[in-house]
């Protein structure tokens, strides 16, 4: 039960004199939702970028599923089973909603490189059905033929989530999945994430909205100025005076 899926060990990252991460240690356990919170500039996004291969740590290593992934390319890390939702939705804006999801499904099925130059997309019925099922699940099915760029901001985020979910990742990283969403959209997203949680998918979630954090997280890590200042189950974090001071006090509306 307590298998460690992602193990961040002694990671340091320095940006031209600014210590973005200092000696960060993090163990993400299988099937859990792990929230990383902290004030702006605490190094949360940097931590995520180190995990997906966008940034290389100065020292330390990241191990996923028993294998060191530091130094690997982003597409290799994804193929290993890590999917990521970005802070600003990264989608294929020129493609239809359905094609967005199909690209992700093809990447999962065919690996990082497989041309299939002479197969017709129409004959990829299995991929298409899978895409429709995921879109249905996230309430995007009726927009499937729309261009992704014409979706609302909340739907774009949901589409990005759909692209990650269709890959059935072992670990899902979410960078502020509800930022800029209305309360209604936020609650919908929470519902979706809760449903995913029931399926046992491991998640790391970075979030400012405490409502989201406390409704989803099994474990919370608090970052401030690149260092972990507290760690524990939600009830404990809520009562921790150090955290109150560094973060919660100011941000609690």
């Amino acid at each position: 039960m307590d298998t460690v899926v992602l193990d961040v060990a002694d990671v340091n990252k320095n940006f031209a004199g600014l210590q973005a991460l200092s000696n960060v240690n993090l163990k993400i356990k299988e099937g859990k939702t792990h929230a990383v919170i902290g004030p702006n500039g605490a190094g949360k996004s940097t931590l995520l970028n180190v995990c997906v291969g966008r940034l290389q740590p100065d020292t330390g290593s990241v191990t996923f599923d028993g294998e060191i992934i530091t130094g690997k390319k982003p597409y290799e890390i994804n193929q290993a089973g890590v999917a990521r939702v970005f802070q600003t939705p990264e989608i294929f804006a020129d493609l239809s909603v359905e094609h967005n999801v199909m690209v992700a499904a093809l990447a999962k099925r065919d690996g990082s490189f497989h041309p299939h130059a002479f197969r017709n997309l129409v004959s990829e019925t299995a991929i298409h059905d899978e895409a429709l099922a995921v879109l249905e699940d996230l309430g995007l099915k009726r927009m499937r033929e729309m261009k992704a760029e014409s979706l609302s901001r909340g739907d774009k985020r949901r589409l990005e989530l759909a692209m990650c979910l269709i890959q059935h990742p072992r670990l899902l990283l979410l960078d502020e999945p509800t930022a800029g969403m209305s309360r209604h959209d936020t609650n919908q997203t929470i519902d979706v994430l809760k449903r995913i949680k029931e399926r046992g998918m491991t998640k790391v979630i970075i979030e400012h909205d405490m409502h989201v954090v406390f409704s989803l997280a099994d474990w919370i890590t608090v970052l401030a100025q690149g260092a972990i200042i507290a760690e524990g189950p939600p009830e404990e974090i809520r009562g921790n005076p150090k955290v109150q001071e560094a973060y919660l006090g100011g941000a609690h509306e």
Partner: protein
Amino acid sequence: MMITRSPRHDMMMIGVFALVVLTMPIWLAPFGAAYPDLLQKFVIFGIMAVGYNILFGLTGYLSFGHAAFLGVGSYSAVWMFKLFTMNVIPAVIIGTLMAGVFAVVIGYVCLRRSGIYFSILTLALAQMCYNLAYSVLTPITNGETGLQIRPTDPRIIDAMFLEPTERVPTTTLFGIDMTGYGGFYFCAVALIITFFISVRIFRSPFGLKLRAIKSNQNRLNYTGINTRPYLLIAFVISGMYAGLAGSLLAVTDPLAGAERMQWTASGEIVLMTILGGAGTLFGPILGAWIIKYFENIFSAFNDGRLHEIFSFLPDTLESIAVGISAQFVGEGWHLTLGLMFMLIVIFLPGGLIEGFNRIVARLRPGQARRRAPAVEEKEAS
């Protein structure tokens, strides 16, 4: 717009396209363009544009060096004529393959960068090829004179089967002369085949991933796809299309010169693609036809012809009208092309095909909105 279409619909579309291409000598006659020399150019640059579109239209990588592949194709084809046989089949195959080899090397280097840096790298490498053709490589390219067929060439295979002649031989396809209409139909068949391949690529998962690269390469990386080999394949395919076009130029006129590789030639291909509509199936071909039509017909208009056109006006008005319009025809056809290009980029970023689509979309819902689509219609006709 790019909703998946059924394969049957595609086959019908290709059939119609084949019919349009093969009947060009008939329907282009009223435009004064139905002579073999120009018809050959229409289809050859059509192939070029179809290939370029696979790179630029799908992946968005703007190459300024495709004329180099055209030149490589031409030189290779002429060398095949000189050394082995005047039969066009080996020339076309080797021309295409040689361009493919060049594309692998140039693509491997240039695709390490994207955006404007990629464009500049391709431009630099193509200019390098052009300059080498004039300097170090003159033994292969024959420098400024250009590579020509001579009666004294060895032509090993032909020498075994045919009587040696004093005359400069012409290119053939197993006895069919490839310089006139024969050449046109040969190139037309090549265009139809290459168009078919391009439709298949557009409709395949490969094509979808290429479009995803254009849309958001970053996302694709985090979606588990290694974009570099996809880009290289697209680059090599389009390079081979250019090599095929180059060798067909040599088939219809067995002479290869380095001016074919100059950057203006590369620029022309970019213009064709954008004018017609990058990323659409027919757009680039349409663009190629329009530019070649302008280059050959419009540029031949002279004052006498203009006086004829404006003869219905009173004398003074006529001379004014001729004086103004003379700037836009003949030598000034570049000016017309430039203006047209500007209008299209500003008002129809999707090219002429977008114009057609808009017109169709307006006509379809019946007479509901009959606002005259003046600008589009003028540009589209």
